[in-house]
């Protein structure tokens, strides 16, 4: 049983209410920070903790905070990125829905460290009912003196507001989120200037993911050094993984980044294996944009080491034989799933979500969807496979924001590891409409269970 820092209390009855949350030790980190620490000391603890951004990029959070410009007389803002939209990812929703005060507590401490007096939670528009949950938690925090003017005599003022988006994956990109918060289309900005210098309303701004900000609570309670002892190497602390696809127990799990991928899929404590005794075909471990891996590369790296659920191990081998931790959106495909069809749904997603600003992404995502649709429906040509490869190469790295890369990578990885399945679709246009390709040579390396 791994150590839990975020969801340990998530199942306590009534934890959504202030009364129960406080009784269970909630808001202790705010007391500690505001009464005994300076803002810089708080940032220092977050740096020492080694906490990496939990939204997907994995950038060290303390370092991001230390980049924040602090010109005299200019307000600074903290914005919480709750625009969770990466397919396969639903961890922030879980955290906000079941233990909302943990996020509010983390936001107060982080706002104090950064000097933000108005902090916004930008939440995806579809999570409409969670807006009510968060606003109730904020009202309770206000009523109990954790928000408002001169909080506990510290001289620090803070108000937190919830801003609802309206359906746009791109607003999870921090500069698009800032544009949206300003009441505009979610078109990403060219960087530099970075938000740390010029963010919302041209003021210095830090944008952090929900889980990142919630993790500030245990970091302050334990101390950065203690927090850094959990996990391994540069993967410190715990990580929320939202597991879905073809598994027995989909849901949100908190792991300490020392367990193997195989254990995560097959242990009853986590995913509980694959339904109906089916075998594993492939997995996308970090949200739809990270490379899909066939089962044989998932459990062991190319060097033969056991693959562990952490930043370093998942990316071992680079894109050739590895993948990424990403947002922790863990998608499992069983032996009966079609990689071409699955990749098509992702290509359609990115075409739908491209903001249209950069032509490689705007045009390229549409072309990829059309070509994949032809291959999937038995109308593809062999040359389409090379064309797909060529298009994704021309998108990657050629756009203002990472959506282009996010759209290119799933197509690239599917072609890299499952090319024979694409070719089979082209060569067997009739049969491919009647059955799936199956497992082939990248078969599940686990022993086949004996059948009676």
């Amino acid at each position, binding site marked *: 049983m791994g150590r839990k820092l975020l969801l340990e209390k998530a199942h306590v009855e009534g934890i959504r209410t202030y009364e129960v949350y406080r009784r269970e030790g909630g808001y202790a980190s705010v007391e500690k920070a505001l009464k005994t620490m300076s803002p810089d000391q708080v940032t220092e603890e977050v740096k020492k903790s080694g906490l990496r951004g939990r939204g997907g990029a994995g950038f060290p959070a303390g370092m991001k905070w230390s980049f924040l410009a602090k010109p005299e007389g200019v307000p600074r803002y903290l914005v919480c990125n709750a625009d969770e939209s990466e397919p396969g990812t639903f961890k922030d929703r879980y955290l906000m829905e079941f233990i909302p005060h943990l996020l509010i507590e983390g936001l107060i401490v982080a706002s104090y460290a950064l000097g933000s007096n108005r902090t916004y939670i930008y939440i995806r528009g579809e999570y409409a009912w969670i807006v009510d949950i968060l606003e109730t938690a904020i009202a309770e925090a206000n009523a109990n003196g954790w928000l408002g003017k001169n909080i506990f005599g510290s001289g620090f003022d803070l108000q937190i507001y919830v801003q609802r988006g309206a359906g746009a994956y791109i607003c999870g990109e921090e500069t698009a989120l800032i544009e949206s918060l300003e*009441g505009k289309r979610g078109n990403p900005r060219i960087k530099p200037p970075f938000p740390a210098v010029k963010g919302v309303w041209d003021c210095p701004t830090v944008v952090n993911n929900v889980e990142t900000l919630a993790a500030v609570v245990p970091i302050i309670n334990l101390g950065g050094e203690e927090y850094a002892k959990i996990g391994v190497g540069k993967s410190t602390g715990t990580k929320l993984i939202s597991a879905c696809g073809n598994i027995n127990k989909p849901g949100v799990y908190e792991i300490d980044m020392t367990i193997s991928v195989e254990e995560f899929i097959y242990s009853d404590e986590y995913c509980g294996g694959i339904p109906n005794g089916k075998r594993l075909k492939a997995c996308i471990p970090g949200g739809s944009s990270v490379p899909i891996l066939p089962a044989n590369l998932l459990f062991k790296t190319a060097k033969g080491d056991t693959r562990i659920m952490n930043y370093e191990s998942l990316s071992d081998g680079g894109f050739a034989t590895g993948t990424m931790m990403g947002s922790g959106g863990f998608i499992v495909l069983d032996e009966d799933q079609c990689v071409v069809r699955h990749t098509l*749904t992702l290509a359609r*997603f990115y075409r739908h979500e491209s903001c249209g600003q950069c032509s490689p992404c705007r045009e390229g995502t549409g072309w990829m969807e059309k070509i994949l649709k032809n291959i999937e429906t038995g109308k593809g040509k062999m040359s389409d496979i090379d064309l797909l490869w060529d298009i994704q190469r021309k998108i990657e790295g050629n756009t203002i924001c990472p959506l282009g890369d996010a759209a290119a990578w799933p197509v690239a990885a599917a072609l890299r590891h499952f090319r024979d399945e694409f070719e089979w679709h082209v060569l067997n246009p009739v049969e491919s409409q009647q059955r799936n390709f199956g497992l082939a040579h990248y078969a599940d390396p686990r022993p086949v269970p004996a059948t009676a």
Partner: protein
Amino acid sequence: MAFTADKLQKVQEIIARYPDGKQKSALIPVLHLAQEEHGGWLSSETMDYVASLLKIEPIEVYEVATFYSMYNLKPVGRYLFEVCQTGPCMLNGSDQIIDYIKEKLNIGVGETTADGLFTLKTVECLGACGYAPMMQLGKHYREHLTRDKVDQIIAECRAKASSMN
């Protein structure tokens, strides 16, 4: 189109969340409010009204309303079924659920039933991947959809509609 006094009060509360002069930031929340008040969609009159409330140009409202997928620019049925079709939902049978809804309501994607009760829309990942297949209905998610559940939801909506008429 005009908001009632309590909705105008709500608009003022939203504007107060931002620094002075930054009332344009209220645009997305106020458009949600306007859509709720105006039968689930945004007409150009509604958008012009929102522009006047926030003291911005109508074009600033149009460009936002056309960018975000949650704003409907055409009338929709009283019950809008927004069914997710992205990867993880597809792995759990969302295509079959969409086909079943089409058959059951006798409409295609993007269409509304003749009685004006139901509109079917397909959407991309709503963050319910572990509870797939799913749809959004109003403010809430309906998850772990099966044919039986779809039947129940449709019956529930019909019952609600007839009790309101």
